[in-house]
């Protein structure tokens, strides 16, 4: 009986975290979230401390991931990265990364841009939004199916939905390197 209660409590906590909707983070929180500490080469770095205090909300939360997916559409990432398979820009779901797969590297790619043609979005998005996108980009390849990952969009499908497990399988060309 006791184990069951504990199990239930744990399950409910994870459920809360997965389903919570923080519609807008507090301004001081948002400011702190921008405090990533990049390394010298500005490729990767350490995440802002508050990220852990908040329990990494952009990784496993259904709402944040879903918002990320929308921003991916709205900010025209598709123009260069297609549905994740890549055109002008590199593929984002094949498991190969030019600048690292960790959240901070992706965040920096987004915020500051990258030399070979990735524009900087730091001036066009809020910190929240950039982290939402980061979380989403990380779920794009969906190496394992996740209950928080978004499902398909109402549009023509070029790849299995993020919650459907390894999307890389749908890539026609394997990375050459």
């Amino acid at each position, binding site marked *: 009986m006791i184990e069951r209660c504990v199990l239930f409590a744990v399950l409910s906590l994870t*459920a809360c975290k997965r*389903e919570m909707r923080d519609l807008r983070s507090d301004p001081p929180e948002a400011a702190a979230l921008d405090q990533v500490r990049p390394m010298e080469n500005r490729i990767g770095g350490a995440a802002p401390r508050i990220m852990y205090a908040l329990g990494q909300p952009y990784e496993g939360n*259904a709402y944040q991931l879903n918002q990320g997916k929308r921003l991916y559409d709205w900010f025209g990432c598709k123009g260069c990265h297609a549905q994740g398979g890549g055109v002008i820009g590199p593929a984002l779901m094949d498991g190969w990364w030019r600048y690292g797969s960790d959240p901070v590297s992706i965040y920096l790619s987004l915020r500051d841009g990258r030399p070979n043609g990735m524009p900087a979005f730091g001036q066009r998005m809020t910190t929240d939004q950039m982290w939402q996108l980061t979380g989403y980009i990380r779920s794009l390849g969906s190496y394992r199916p996740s209950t928080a990952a*978004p*499902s398909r969009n*109402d*549009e023509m*499908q070029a790849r299995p939905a993020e919650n459907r497990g390894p999307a890389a399988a749908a890539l026609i060309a394997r990375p050459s390197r």
Partner: protein
Amino acid sequence: MSGSYLEQVVQPDTRDTDIPPRLLGPQLERIWGTPRGLWGFLTTVDHKRIGQRYIVTAFIFLAMGGVLALLMRLQLSGPERRFIDPDRYNQIFTMHGTNMMFLFAVPVMEAVAVYIVPLMVGTRNIAFPRLNAFSYWMFLIGGLVLWVGFALDMGPDVGWFAYVPLSGPQYGAGKRSDIWAQMITFTEIAALAVAVELVVTILKQRAPGMTLDRIPLFVWAMLVTAFAVICAMPAIMIASTSLILDRLVGTHFFNPSEGGDVLLWQHLFWFFGHPEVYIIFLPAVGMISSIIPTFARRPIVGYLPLVLALIATGILAFGLWVHHMFVTGLPRLGESFFTASSMAIAVPNGIQIFCWLATLVLGRPVLKTPMLFILAFFFTFVIGGLSGVMVASVPFDTQVHDTYFVVAHFHYVLIGGAVFPLMGAVYYWFPKITGRMMSERIGRWVVGLVVVGFNLTFFPMHILGLQGMPRRIYTYQPELGWGPLNLFVSLSGCILAAGFVLFFFDVVRSMRSGAPASDNPWQAATLEWATSSPPPSYNFSRIPVVTSANPLWDATILPATRGLRVERRELLVTTVVDAEPQARESSPSDSIWPFWAAVTTSVLLVSSIFTPWAVVWGAIPVTFALIGWFWPKSTPEDLA
């Protein structure tokens, strides 16, 4: 002493004529009774116990939904209030609607029928009693799934009709809509099961002599309702299953870019959703037709027109659904057709109202609490009907669509049309179910508070709607000027709530210490009043024979059948039209398997929210439960 004596006397194939009349009751109790304790609770298939539980559970859901309503009124009591954040508010209004429609209104009507119909038609148990037990557990677990989801911040937040694309994979993030869709599956399974039981009970288990034109009107209403359930529910099951498939495995039922259709959802939903209104309303009509003759002290006027009106309403109910979709840009012809059919349904409803009024005028009405609720119904339902005719016309509907006018309208028809008669029915049948009377004095207060509170709460909503206040908003700006009226509505809501609290108080109080009730405290005419209050486990020691439409008024001594076996559960099967005795039929005994079947099915359904593989692996325990349920027994087949 009688126990050991009975053991000696009762051999296989002992008939009720073989043992002394004084021992008939104890013997039947031995065969039909439910053992005490938890085991009895889990295994019973007695329609009265299950019906009682069903009713109590549904009323608990009503109370919980009422609390949600109060929370919403608190938030809306003034502009820019900050009691509830928008996300929570979305969940709350969705939960309120879903809970009230799927966990209260439909189940409670079927629950009353599960209890009353077998008594009214004079049989010993409902048909398929184990399915009945299964149905209750499914309903209970479905309700729990919804509420636990809400407690975990996973409550659906897409409105009670969950339109795609909002509820679809692209916009409905997380598992919230899946919880909604799966809760639908649970309640629909439960509702369909009861519907099938009712149809068979009513068509095949009526007391001998209860020809079609002697069936009590409540039973007629439930027959029509059950058929409506059977025809309407599959549509929503298809819809909710397609939605889950779209969301979980990426099918494209509702994705226009891949050949799906968004409006398909609305059609499927309302093809169920509109008949559902009548699935709720028709039983209430039946209750009214039972209560009025009792308190008017005369047989109902216009039995035939009333039955025909019931059937006509049941059929027409399926031809109206598009009036929920007038603003979706349908072809003109479609709009005109559905306007006409929406107005046409006012005709059978009007006929019913006039029959009831005629009964009252020609009788000598006694104004007891149940009757007062019926009068409240007349007043309120007519207002709801009038605003209904208004929104049936496309130009008007286009103006008030999705405003508080619509909110006012459907609360008038649902609460006025179904909840008031239901509360009357509770006061009416409470003595039969518990053996105690509810308080007449408190009852009058309840009627007063509820009726006044209701009208003060919901009438101003018409005005708010005409002023342009949309439904489903979590707040509004002060400049819009809706503040004072909203405050008034919220305060009136407290009067309504007080009425309900008093009602629940009276129920609990009467259950403990109400005045003992006689077998037929209201001097009513139908068979449920022929047995004791509360009825014994076997309902009737001998199945009565019916010779008129109002058996308890017309026969001084009710004739009864003889020759049923007493050492096993046995009841009488009769012909559909004339209710001529056809066969003695065994009735299933208690069993734990319905419970396990419900538990395993629930595990399957809930897990399938998270992974499609649950359907495969979850099917295994379900199979075992069903094998256990249907394992062949060594009892011989029935002889005719």
